[in-house]
């Protein structure tokens, strides 16, 4: 177990290193000088030279890369050009705001997706099943940003139930904080709930047809116990993996959803940084997001091996 975890974490480190290489190459090799992008059309030669010197753009690429990587390893993620502040504290503040949204969405997804999928499978080909199937089909066909806008229209605009955008600190106004969390969480979860319920339904159907479920029924166990004690546990294996794998989708969705709801989190920060051409901020945000994603994937694998005793760690590379 320890060896397996160590190997996986080593692989994460390797992945993250390559991510830094890719991020660096893309931001430094693609046509378009960073200094020119930052200054936009209002540049003059002196400003350009000065900024190039500040950013160290005149050094050879490997030197620049090494300086950046060494900074990251020392916890220094660079300095935001636009805000003129170190990137790390900015990122940290945004992560603290986004984490409840992401975790909330993941919880809603897990709960709603599994419940809906199970209900649909148990009531196969009956009205409940059809309703869930159609709803989840719509769910995967409509992108988050459109769901978000429709929710704003209905919930905030028409019924005036919840605020449509913004953020307040939970220490200042706990209720206001929660109220502004609801719509982003729902929006983010909708697509994932659809995916999860479809997946749970089909794996549940497979399991319900298996020999051991038939055996359990033949022994005269009550249907409730057959479904929840015998079938569901095994049907959830693929769902768990996919849930953790969904984390990456969640990070991407966060960017869009935070923009829709003007929520000042990690995703909103990335969009801001890209619009402002704040390259150090963009680089750091993307590396951090990729890091979360990689760790989530490890967590998925570990959970899976833990849940499924058939898999031995030694078999896995």
């Amino acid at each position, binding site marked *: 177990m320890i060896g397996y975890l160590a190997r996986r974490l080593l692989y994460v480190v390797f992945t993250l290193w390559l991510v830094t290489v890719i991020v660096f190459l*893309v931001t430094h090799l693609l046509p378009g000088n960073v200094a020119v992008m930052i200054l936009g059309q209002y540049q003059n030669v002196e400003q350009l030279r000065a900024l190039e010197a500040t950013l160290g753009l005149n050094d050879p690429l490997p030197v620049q890369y090494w300086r950046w990587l060494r900074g990251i390893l020392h916890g220094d993620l660079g300095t935001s050009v636009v805000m003129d502040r170190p990137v790390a504290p900015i990122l940290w503040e945004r992560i603290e705001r986004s984490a409840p949204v992401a975790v909330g969405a993941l919880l809603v997804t897990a709960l709603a997706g599994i419940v809906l999928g199970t209900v649909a499978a148990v009531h196969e080909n009956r009205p409940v099943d059809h309703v869930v199937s159609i709803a989840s*089909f719509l769910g995967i066909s409509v992108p988050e940003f459109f769901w978000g806008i429709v929710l704003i229209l209905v919930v905030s605009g028409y019924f005036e139930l919840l605020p449509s955008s913004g953020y307040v600190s939970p220490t200042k106004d706990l209720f206001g904080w929660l109220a502004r969390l609801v719509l982003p969480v729902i929006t983010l979860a909708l697509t994932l709930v659809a995916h999860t319920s479809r997946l749970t339904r089909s794996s549940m159907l497979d399991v319900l047809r298996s020999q051991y479920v038939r055996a359990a029924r033949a022994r005269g166990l009550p249907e409730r116990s057959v479904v929840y004690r015998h079938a569901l546990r095994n049907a959830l294996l693929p769902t768990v993996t996919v849930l953790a794998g969904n984390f990456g989708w969640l990070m991407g969705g966060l960017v869009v959803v935070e923009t829709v709801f003007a929520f000042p989190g990690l995703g909103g920060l990335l969009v801001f940084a*890209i619009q402002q051409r704040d390259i150090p901020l963009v680089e750091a945000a*993307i590396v951090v997001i990729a890091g979360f994603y990689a760790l989530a994937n490890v967590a998925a694998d570990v959970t899976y091996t833990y849940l499924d005793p058939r898999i031995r760690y030694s078999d896995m590379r």
Partner: protein
Amino acid sequence: MSEAGAGPRLARGRAVRGWAVVRGRPALAVGGAIVIAMAMLAVLAPWLVRYPPTEFHVVDRLTPPSVLYWFGTDEFGRDVYSRVMIGTRLSMIIGCLAMAVCMAVGTPLGLLAGYVGGRTDEVLMRGLDILMSFPSIIFGMLILTVTSPGPFKTALAVGIVYAPMIARIARSVTLSIKEEDYVAAARSRGESHFYILFGEILPNTWAPLTVEASLRVTFAILAAAALSFLGLGAQPPETDWGLTIAEARKFMTVAPWIALFPGAAMCLTVVGLNLFGDGLRDALDPRVARRSRG
């Protein structure tokens, strides 16, 4: 997918069989009809608009749908119907272009990895895994960071983002084709690797890959729309679904029609493509179909 090798001489038979396939499968028929309709709208958009899509009707700002303006007008008094038509065209072009880029980048990589195998395969596939370790929208944003945005750059970025996915499929198809007799025959004739790869294997990967591409073109369309929504796609005065919706956000409570109509067009297209894709998968692989339909 087994029809791959049927060849053109069965064209007529294929059309008849095509009808038989559609008849028992409402999803395929409905999805196909929606996709064809939306594609026609996209092609015919320049003739379907009722006003120039960028023309201002200052007197008629933010008017609700009416006989004059079928889908209402936006904050500048531009006709939303005309903008949806033109936007649908641009969005569809971006989606198809992205898929083309995806195939052009992913297929050769997958072919190479599957055919050569060994170290090359390992390195290529690990590399692609790493690329896939970025959430797709984030990767697209990264590519678009350093260039000034535009619809074709978005298509290129989305294509690159989803290329690893196609490469994986191309690789697995290649792995199975590699063992076929005709490849062994070509090898024993002493044909070059280049010929075997592009003359023997590539033509036979075409059918399964096209199916995959058509199943996943919704990813490309939705990713491009999201990037556009974030301001990294079409630039005003040009427009597509994502940008129209982004611009309409501010007026959501006063003039919801500006966002709802392009949104509906987008959802209809994606629903159509998904229905069509599911139907196609059912038709091609009855085993999967029975399982997923129960």
